C-alpha cells in the first residue's frame, strides 16, 4: 500500500511567530479580512479533495489587488508560505493549506469590472465565479466558453491556476485558449500585467506560463477573458450503447472522421443511475453507456452534423438516440451531467481521477480501470469528457473505513499510470495539486521537471507559493 502524501514540514520560525504574524496581517486587512481563531480555521483545512486536511496558520481575505500585494510582500519578507484559494472546489487538493501557511482567499474579490461586447472581452476580478461571467453577458447573447462542471461555484482565478476545462472545451478550448490577460501579484508584492484585451502581446507569452501554474508563480487578481457570441441553437442528444467499449469506439470514430461537436460526454451505467436520481433528466436507464453529444448552429447545421454522427453511431450498434425536445430538457441533461460528482455523494464517498488518453485507447483504459477497481473490491463510476479523451473515473469508497480509503488511493494511482502508459497524461484539467504530485515522475523525466522547477524558482526563489504541490518533494533544488 502506498504511503499517505506528505506535506513539507512546517517552518518552525513561522510557527513560533504566529501571534505577531496574525497581528501584522490583521493590520494590513482592515474590515475583518483576517480569519485566525482556532475554530474558524477548521473549515479551511481542505477543499473538494477531502482525503487530506491541514489547518492553515491564518486565512487572509483581501478586497483589492493592493491588499493582496501587501499580504504577499509581508509573507515574502518573513518567509511565510502562502496557499491561494478561490472557491475551494479543487479535486486534487490545490487549495489544501499547511500549518505554517497563510491561505489567501479571493472570495471577496468577485466583481465583474468591465464588459466590452464590441471587442468580445470581459474584465473580472479573480474571485468571480465562472458561471457568473456567462450569466452577466448571457442576456446580450454572449458566453464564456470553458465550463468546468463546478462552474456554478469555481472561480476564474482557480480556473487560471489549473487551466480548467469542461464539457464544451472540445470545440472551444480550455482556459488558456480563452484567456487574454491577467493582473498578477508576485510573491514580493510586485503587481504585473500580462497580455491584455488583444490576441497576442509583444514579448514573451508569459500568460501561457501562468495559466496552469497552480498558484506557484503569483496570485492572479484580475483577468481579461474572451467572451463569444452564442450559437443560433444548441441541442444535446443522448446516445445509448450496450457497452462502454462500443461507446468509446464510437467517440474515436466521430472525432477521427473530423467531426467536432460542441461536447461529447460519456457516462457508464453507474454514473447514469447516480445522475438520473438527482436531475431526473430522462437518461436511458437500460443502456450500459451513454454519450451526451451536443451539436450547435442553425437548424440545418445541427441536422447535418447529427445525421453524420447517427450514421457512425449505428455502426457501433447504438441502442437509443434521443434529442432533447425543449430548453428545459436540455438544461436538465446538462444539470445532471454537471452535478455528477456531487450526486455521487448520495451513494458513497469518492475520489475523482483526471487522466487523459488518446481516443483510440479509451476502451482499453476503461476496461483496465474496471479491472483495477474490482480487483481491489471497489466500485467505479465513469463520467467524463470523452471527446477530449479526458477521463474521470470516480472511485467509490467509504471514508470512515481507513483500509478502503487507502485502497481507493492505490486504485487511483494505478489508473493514472495506465493512462500515462497508454500515451496519455496524469491530468486533463483538474491540475496536479497534492493528489498527483508524487506521480509526476511517471510522466516527466528529471530534466523535464528540473526545467519546470527552474521557471518556478525564477518567480518565487524561496518556494513560498503553494509549496507542497505539483513537484515531488525529493529532487527539488535547495532553496
Amino acid at each position: 500500500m502506498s504511503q499517505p502524501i506528505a506535506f513539507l514540514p512546517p517552518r518552525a520560525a513561522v510557527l513560533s511567530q504566529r501571534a505577531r504574524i496574525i497581528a501584522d496581517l490583521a493590520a494590513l486587512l482592515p474590515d475583518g479580512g483576517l480569519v485566525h481563531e482556532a475554530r474558524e480555521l477548521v473549515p479551511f483545512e481542505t477543499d473538494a479533495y477531502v482525503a487530506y486536511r491541514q489547518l492553515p496558520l491564518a486565512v487572509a481575505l483581501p478586497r483589492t489587488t493592493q491588499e493582496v500585494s501587501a499580504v504577499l510582500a509581508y509573507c515574502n519578507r518573513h518567509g511565510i508560505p502562502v496557499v491561494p484559494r478561490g472557491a475551494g472546489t479543487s479535486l486534487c487538493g490545490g487549495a489544501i493549506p499547511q500549518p505554517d501557511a497563510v491561505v489567501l482567499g479571493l472570495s471577496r474579490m468577485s466583481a465583474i469590472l468591465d464588459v466590452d461586447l464590441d471587442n468580445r472581452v470581459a474584465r473580472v476580478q479573480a474571485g468571480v465565479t465562472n458561471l457568473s461571467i456567462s450569466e452577466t453577458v448571457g442576456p446580450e447573447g454572449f458566453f464564456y466558453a470553458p465550463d468546468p462542471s463546478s462552474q456554478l461555484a469555481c472561480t476564474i482565478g482557480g480556473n487560471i491556476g489549473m487551466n480548467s476545462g469542461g464539457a464544451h472545451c472540445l470545440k472551444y478550448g480550455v482556459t488558456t485558449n480563452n484567456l487574454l490577460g491577467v493582473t498578477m501579484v508576485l510573491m514580493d508584492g510586485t503587481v504585473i500585467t500580462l497580455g491584455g484585451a488583444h490576441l497576442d502581446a509583444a514579448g514573451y507569452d508569459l500568460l501561457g506560463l501562468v495559466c496552469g501554474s497552480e498558484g506557484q508563480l503569483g496570485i492572479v487578481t484580475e483577468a481579461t477573458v474572451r467572451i463569444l457570441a452564442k450559437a443560433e441553437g444548441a441541442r444535446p442528444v443522448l446516445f445509448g450503447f450496450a457497452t462502454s467499449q462500443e461507446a468509446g469506439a464510437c467517440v474515436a470514430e466521430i472525432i477521427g472522421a473530423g467531426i467536432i461537436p460542441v461536447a461529447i460526454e460519456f457516462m457508464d451505467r453507474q454514473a447514469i443511475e447516480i445522475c438520473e436520481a438527482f436531475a431526473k433528466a430522462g437518461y436511458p436507464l437500460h443502456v450500459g453507456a451513454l454519450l451526451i453529444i451536443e451539436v450547435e448552429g442553425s437548424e440545418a447545421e445541427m441536422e447535418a452534423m447529427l445525421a453524420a454522427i447517427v450514421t457512425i453511431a449505428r455502426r457501433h450498434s447504438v441502442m437509443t438516440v434521443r434529442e432533447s425536445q425543449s430548453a428545459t430538457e436540455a438544461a436538465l441533461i446538462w444539470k445532471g451531467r454537471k452535478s455528477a460528482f456531487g450526486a455521487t455523494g448520495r451513494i458513497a464517498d469518492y475520489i475523482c481521477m483526471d487522466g487523459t488518453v488518446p481516443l483510440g485507447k479509451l476502451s482499453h483504459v476503461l476496461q483496465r480501470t474496471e479491472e483495477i477497481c474490482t480487483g481491489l473490491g471497489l466500485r467505479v463510476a465513469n463520467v467524463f469528457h470523452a471527446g477530449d479523451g479526458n477521463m474521470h473515473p470516480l472511485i467509490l469508497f467509504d471514508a470512515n473505513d481507513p483500509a478502503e480509503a487507502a485502497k481507493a488511493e492505490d486504485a487511483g494511482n494505478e489508473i493514472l499510470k495506465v493512462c500515462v502508459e497508454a500515451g496519455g497524461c496524469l491530468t486533463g484539467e483538474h491540475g496536479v495539486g497534492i493528489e498527483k504530485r508524487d506521480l509526476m515522475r511517471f510522466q516527466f523525466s528529471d530534466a523535464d521537471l528540473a526545467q519546470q522547477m527552474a521557471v518556478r524558482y525564477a518567480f518565487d526563489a524561496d518556494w513560498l507559493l503553494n509549496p507542497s504541490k505539483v513537484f515531488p518533494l525529493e529532487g527539488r533544488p535547495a532553496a
Partner: protein
Amino acid sequence: MQTSFTPEQLADPHVAESEKILRRCVHCGFCTATCPTYVTLGNELDSPRGRIYLIKDMLENDRPADREVVTHIDRCLSCLACTTTCPSGVDYMHLIDHARVHIEQTYQRPLGDRMIRGLLAAVLPYPARFRAALALARVARPLAPLLRRVKPLAPLAAMLDLAPRRAAKRRPAPASGDHPAAHGRVILLEGCAQPALDPGINAATVRLLTRRGVAIATPKGEGCCGALVHHMGREPQALDFARRNIDAWTREIEAGGLDAILITASGCGTTIKDYGHMLRLDPLYAAKAARVSALARDITEYLSTLDLEPLPKRDLVVAYHSACSLQHGQKITALPKLLLKTAGFTVRDPAEGHLCCGSAGTYNILQPEISATLKRRKVKNLEATKPDVIAAGNIGCLTQIGSGTAIPIVHTVELLDWAYGGPRPSKLGG
C-alpha cells in the same frame, strides 16, 4: 465526508441523524455559490459548506457552542437555497436545526441578545401581544435612528422600521364552514403575525375558497406554528406549539373528510410539513404529527387542484417573488406562477430569484445589516422587471420587500381572489 463520532455519541438520536447528514456531504462547494450570505460576505465561514464544517467540528468534539460558531450559525438565513443546489442531497435544514438547539442548550448569549430574543419569542407568536407591540411601535418610531446607533439595540430599530405605519384593519375571523362541502373541506391556518400585519390575505383566501365551494374549518385551540422559536433553537417551546396545533387539527381530522390543512404563509408551511420529523421521537405524537404534515399544503398547491379556469389576459404585469420557504423549503416553484398566468396576469421572474430577500423570520430584526443588503439587492432585481405589482406567498417577504419599494406588493392569493370574482386588492389603489 469522513466523520469521527464514538458509538456513545451516536447513541444520541440527534447526533446520529446529524452524522448521517454529514456523511452525505462531499465538500464540493456548489452550495457556496447560491448562499445569500456567502455572496454578500465572501467568507466561507458564512457559507453552507463552512457552517457544515463548523457544526461537524463542534459535534464531533462534543463541545459547547462558542462565540465564533454562534456568529456564523446566526448569520444563516435558513433560506435553504443550498438544499436546492446540493447535488449530494445533504439535509442541511435538519443539521442547522440541530446546531441551533445545541447552541441554545450550551451557550449563553450576551445580555442584550438574550433580551431581544426573549422579547421576540414572547411577543411574535401571540396575535394579541403582537398587535399591542405594533401599536407601541407606531408611537416609538421616532426613536429608531437613536437606537440604531447603539449596536446591541439595533434590532429594536429594525423592528420599528418594519412595523407597518398604519394599523391593519381588524376583520372578523374567517367564517366557519358549516355549509355542505361540495368540493372539499379544509383547515385554514389562521397564523399569528400574518393576521396582525395583513388580515386581508386570509380574508381573500376564504372568499376564493368559499366561492369555489370549499368548506373551511377553524378549529379551536390552534396557534402559532412554532417556526419563529424553532429557528431560534428553542425546541421545547416549538414542540409545544406543534403539539397544540396537532391536537386541535387531529380532532378535525378524526371528525372525517378533511382534505388539507392550508397555509398562506409559506414559512409556516415549511415548518408544519416538518412536524412529522420534529416529533418523530415522541411516541405519543409521532404518528399524529406525520398525519398532519402529510395533509399540509401551501394555498397555491391546493388551488391548483381546483382546476381554476383560464381567464382572458389582463393588462397587469406581476413580478413574482419566490419565497425561500416555498421554492427551497417546499420545492414549489412553478405552481404559483402558473396560477397567476392562468388567471390572466403577465408574470415576470426577477434575476437572482434564488436569493433570499433577507426577511427570513426574525432575521431582519436580529441581523439588520445583512438583511438590509439583501433587501436592496432583491428590490433592485424586482424593480428591474418593471412590474405593476409584486406578488409573493409569505408574509415575511411581503413586509420586508414592501418596506423597500414603492411598488405595491400583495400575496399571490389576493390577486387570484380578485381575478376570480373578489374585490381588487386595496394595495393596488384605484
